[in-house]
């Protein structure tokens, strides 16, 4: 297969970036998208040019490192698929493929296709945990959690922290990311105790980082490679407002 690649190149955080065009021949349909970029990079290096920098590690869709904006979609055209799981057989021969980094003020570009997602980290530092020390744990089966709830908790917990939800959202909102963690803990006895405080802190941090608000387009759910549901945003909002109401009552 042959492709024309238009790739965002940017030397560093301070440099001005631009699109560069690279024709690429003899691509195997069996290649994954990242293997195709490896193949391009080998050619660039042999021509004495700088290879395209992109983030990746596990290459099996679980570490959340890779995240490219491909033809206007986070992680490309396939649903429930991370960039590393995408294969060239999913593209048309001769196609022009546009590859960009995530676009969001809260994710500044570091180099080429790599962005700084430390804003996501700080949202977690604000409250994405249960306050329990090593040694404090009760026996595991002492607080049963019904299978249906447990399964729902799992569905929230599968977030890989890639940032596709932010990239998909016209407001660059991180609601789905924060909601998945908030919901995971709010639904179980272990996390319920501090649920209200947690939602307050995490939402506040989200705003501080410059992520936008939710305007219910559901683009995040559509493009989430793990299919995390926007129902969790509703759950987060409920937690948030009940926390507010609680505070007013006690004020």
């Amino acid at each position, binding site marked *: 297969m042959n492709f024309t690649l238009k790739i965002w190149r940017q030397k*560093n955080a301070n440099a001005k970036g631009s699109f560069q065009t690279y024709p690429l021949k003899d691509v195997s349909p069996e290649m994954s998208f990242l293997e195709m970029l490896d193949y391009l990079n080998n050619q660039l290096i042999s021509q004495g040019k700088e290879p395209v*920098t992109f983030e990746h*590690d596990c290459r099996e869709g679980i570490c959340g490192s890779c995240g490219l904006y491909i033809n206007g979609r986070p992680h490309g055209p396939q649903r429930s698929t991370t960039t590393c799981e995408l294969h060239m057989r999913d593209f048309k021969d001769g196609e022009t493929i546009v590859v960009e980094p995530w676009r969001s003020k809260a994710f500044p570009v*570091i180099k080429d296709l790599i962005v700084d997602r430390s804003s996501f980290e700080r949202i977690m530092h604000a409250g994405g945990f249960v306050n*329990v020390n090593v040694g404090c744990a009760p026996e*595991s*089966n002492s607080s*049963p959690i019904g299978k249906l709830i447990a399964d729902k908790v799992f569905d929230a917990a599968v977030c890989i922290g890639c940032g596709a939800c932010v990239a998909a959202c016209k407001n660059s909102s991180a609601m789905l990311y924060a909601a998945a963690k908030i919901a995971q*803990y709010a639904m179980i006895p272990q996390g319920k105790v501090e649920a209200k405080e947690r939602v307050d802190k995490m939402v506040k941090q989200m705003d501080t980082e410059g992520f936008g608000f939710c305007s219910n387009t559901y683009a995040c759910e559509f493009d989430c490679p793990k299919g995390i549901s926007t129902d969790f945003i509703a759950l987060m909002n409920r937690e948030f407002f009940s926390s507010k109401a609680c505070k007013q009552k006690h004020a």
Partner: protein
Amino acid sequence: MIKLDSKIPEGPLAEKWSRYKAGLRLVNPANKKKIDIIVVGTGLAGAGAASALGELGYNVKVFCFQDSPRRAHSVAAQGGINAAKNYRNDNDSIYRLFHDMMKGGDYRAREANVYRAAEVSNDVIDHFTAMGVPFARDYGGSLDTRSFGGVQVSRTFYAKGQTGQQCLLGTYSSLNRQIAKGTVKMFPRRDMLDIVMVDGKARGVITRNLVSGELERHSAHAVVLATGGYGTVFYLSTLGLGSNASAAWSAYRKGAVFANPSFIQIHPTSIPVLNDYQCKLTLMSESLRNDGRVWVPKEKGDKRHANEIPEEGRDYYLERRYPAFGNLVPRDVASRAAKERCDAGYGVGDTGLSVYLDFKDAINKQGEKAIRDKYGNLFEMYEKITGINPYKQPMRIYPAGHYTMGGLWVDYNLMTTIPGLYAIGESNFSDHGANRLGASSLMQCSGDGYFILPNTISDYLSEDIRTGKISTDQPAFEEAEKQVADRIQKIMAVGGKETASSFHKQLGKIMWDHCGMRRDAEGLKKGMELLIQLEEEFWSNICVPGTDKELNQELEKALKVADFFEVGRLMCEDALQREESCGAHFREEHQTETGEAKRNDANFAFVAAWEYQGPAAKPKLHKEALEFKYVELKERSYK
């Protein structure tokens, strides 16, 4: 002169740890604030240790090469985590878990360490549950378990096929909590390139900031390596592409001895190599062998579609050869059996280098939904990569490099032969002998990080309460930084034509062919020669574009590959000296009449610990004799 002292405490096996712990010295809370600890790596072991040490009140600095600690490769562990809870009333116990691990490791692990890992396993599960890790549950709300290879009880806790992810995210959350409290300072996007030794003790590290390219000095009273295994020595492996041996190797070069380097697990169920551009093999969890049946056609070269081969034309070779354990034999046995069938010409697929893993019977019996509930994400992953729907036709699988039982030698305190340098999780050697059982890795990493190291390290640090801050301006730091800078300059200066990946790929092939699933003396010697040749070529023809003072992924790769030549040579050296077959280490010269591994307990019941003697010199072998008081050494039979 290094003398190995395992420091295994006296007393009955079941009481060793509790008695020993009670005698360990402590650091009082006020003094803990004066003590700095460096942890390198943020997988289950590293992030667990860092958060536990932070909770205790130490000042902890943590490093990882990824942009976030949540991406460490523990995240990719699929099947589960073992614990001796006996929730199934199937007569499980700490002793039985210990015994299974000793046998599974083919009697090449330390009894005391293995028992301790089994002992803390229940605490690990309780702690994860308390942190909100969503393990699978049954309808009554209790935790569910499943079976794994090499055991006859159901003790594996799981979260679909994403147990590693869920355990790691739990651990990441505890790390975040400490970061927020200020006890832990996180340094992402750093490669650790050297250990700094002051007066014979580990006192710091040199790291490279992967964004700016600057070298940085960090000091501490103790250094903990939680840097994982070196399975990427095969190039194609189930590991993340960033996984590497460099941190552990820098410790080896500074005098930490390296144990059993040739013990490397080849996982039986990976998606086979599909094309030449591939740089990664994706694992299909061992848990699939609970319901999947492994087979090849009975007829050599049968090219019919799998679904067209009738029952009588199929050879369920694991069930045939090992009726007692069937498809759930341990990984080393399953891998060799697959290789044996493929080498004999019964393999399937275009290359003939794969076997079937078939769910037809399980789907017929339990229904597609039940199978989807258990393994949904794995089936999806398989379909995404291969384009084939495994609900409709069998998966094709083949063994791939996976986990390293070998690693830095540590004593009972998890300290290496360098005072103040600890190694935990996969980066040490201690608990899995010559073969690791499935779901024991998450268990060991978490046990080391949360429950063992925080106790043992205080004993060492109790002597450091008057030391004060370690300055990074001293000559030891200067010298270590200069060595690293020189090495980087040396690589940058070559200006050759070949990429680091190309060298890595060639190196991986040498290792796979000469030090893989089956080894012999001639092949191992040949392998070492080829590695020396390739290393020479590397230093005259490596190409690294760009500069070292910027984000440069080619430089990162080249630095890692440069270390792998030595890793590979030491693996071959170790495999060559071990004139027996045990666990994952299979020497053609030493097998039973039925082709099973043949141990030589009289001469090889020891840990081979290698001491570095310089880049070209042959490393020196130290032997730690293994004593077996609580298990009887038997031929490891799964028939």
